[in-house]
């Protein structure tokens, strides 16, 4: 079973599902909404390992043994059943369901892109300043960034605005999709591609599907941040093929 975990409105994830089906590989799609109303959830740990079983309202059963790979695009825990609860109860339940999901997806022995980090269900989220420092060390063009009292408040936004300021007028935003340290189907210049590969290595993206954002002006690509939710459509058939090879034991190449 190739499992795709996604919010109902994640068009990039649904596009991947369509491309996968076109290539002959069936995906089992579980939305955050559906998981919020699962019929049964069971997660067992012992010295012998971890076993999980989820039963959905439509009869779909997901277990540790029947999943071959996971495309995980979950950003929020499956807590919609609690949306009308008091804030205190909702926050508690949300934290519990987040903790459950983090453990479940990290315990799977099959490939998962991405495994949740404790901070983000969708995958790795290095602090923007850590990412920027690593990008500079990797040889990518990095803007001077400031934050603090009297400056931009939010670090990711501070980095993006600094990149936009460095790039100047006429610039545009580009995202480079990177799977397991390899830049996928992109026309970025060779020095940017090699810099991205070095950055992916230093940030521990060896087993991750991420997007790296740049603000591009003329021939300079200014590093502007990372995301565990890349725009999958940018990767085209190349990305679909690589993901199916990775996540499905009997992959079928996507048709032209």
């Amino acid at each position, binding site marked *: 079973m190739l499992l795709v975990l996604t919010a109902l409105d994640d068009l990039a994830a649904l596009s991947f599902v369509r491309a996968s089906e076109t290539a002959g590989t069936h995906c089992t799609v579980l939305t955050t909404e559906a998981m919020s109303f699962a019929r049964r959830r069971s997660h067992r*740990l012992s010295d012998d390992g971890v076993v999980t079983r989820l039963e959905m309202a439509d009869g779909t059963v997901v277990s540790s043994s029947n999943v071959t790979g996971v495309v995980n695009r979950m950003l929020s825990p499956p807590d919609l059943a609690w949306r009308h609860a008091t804030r205190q109860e909702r926050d508690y339940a949300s934290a519990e369901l987040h903790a459950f999901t983090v453990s479940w997806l990290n315990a799977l022995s099959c490939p998962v892109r991405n495994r949740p980090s404790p901070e983000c269900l969708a995958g790795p989220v290095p602090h923007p300043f850590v990412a920027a420092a690593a990008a500079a060390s990797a040889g990518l063009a990095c803007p001077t960034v400031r934050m603090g009292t009297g400056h931009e408040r939010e670090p990711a936004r501070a980095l993006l605005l600094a990149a936009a300021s460095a790039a100047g007028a006429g610039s545009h935003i580009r995202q480079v999709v990177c799977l397991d340290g390899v830049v996928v189907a992109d026309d970025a210049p060779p020095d940017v591609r090699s810099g991205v590969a070095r950055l992916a290595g230093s940030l521990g993206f060896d087993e991750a599907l991420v997007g790296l954002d740049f603000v591009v002006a003329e021939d300079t690509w200014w590093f502007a941040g990372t995301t565990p939710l890349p725009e999958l459509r940018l990767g085209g058939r190349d990305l679909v093929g690589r993901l199916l090879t990775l996540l499905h034991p009997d992959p079928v190449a996507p048709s032209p």
Partner: protein
Amino acid sequence: MTVLLWGVPTEGPIAMVAAALSRLGVDAVTVHPRAAGEHHVVLGLDPGPGGATLTGSIQVAGRRVALGGIRGAYLRPVEPELVPELARLPATAPDRIHARLVHDTLVAFTEVAGTLTGCRVANRLSSMASNISKPYQAQAVLRHGFSTPATLISDDPDEVLDFVALHGQVVYKSISGVRSIVTAFDPATDRSRLGRLRWCPVQFQEQVRGPDVRVHVVGEEVFAARADTDAVDYRYARAQVGQDARLSAYRLPADVADRCVALAADLDLPFSGIDLKLAPDGRVVCFEVNPSPGFPWYEQEAGLPISAAVARWLTRG
């Protein structure tokens, strides 16, 4: 050399580490979350040919300290929204926005400083996050050769009752980092409440007998205390059995101490509190790795020099 202490200065852990730093003659600057309005901070990343350079400074009580000169940082911050004086204010209040800016900038500094300046941080908030899911953390515990209690997280009452029948005595507690009191499952009173599990799974564990051992790991140093009590949760022994647990220094077997150090390093926690149970069947069961241990009770009752070790670690760079 300057060490940053980020937390409430009168709170035990911060106060004891501050005192230990003072005994070492080390300069410390304390950022009090309740005094954020008096703090000003700017953090910069300046790219250069060999990578980025960290710039900026923090101004506390009229004193300005260059961030690049801070060699160690001990973190027990309080979210601005939880500071009593700020919690009453609307989110758009300038004082609350200012406090959030101070907080977020110090998070950024403590996340990146280790790489750029060699500043020793105990602990980075991103590293503390492993404690956000106990079963996730338990997977790391297993990789380091500790035993984990048989655990069921379920929203199915029948499955829970089967688990109770199999293990006899069972406790329940939160899955997440939200603090909860470990409580024994009582079939007589709790059985009728199991229907409430339906919309949120709950964590049940076999109740492991034997003494509790809290291991504080500071870098590669280990300080262990044994807790003797009849309570299910020794931290709440007074509430559960009418008197506090008795703490005493405990000599850990060398291989267990080594595994504690390795586990803490794997979780990127230079300072941690590891909860062990010495089961009668010989298992060393690990329940949790606390990323921000409240250590004064163990230091004072069991005579463990933990704050001095933290101070040494912070200044070792």
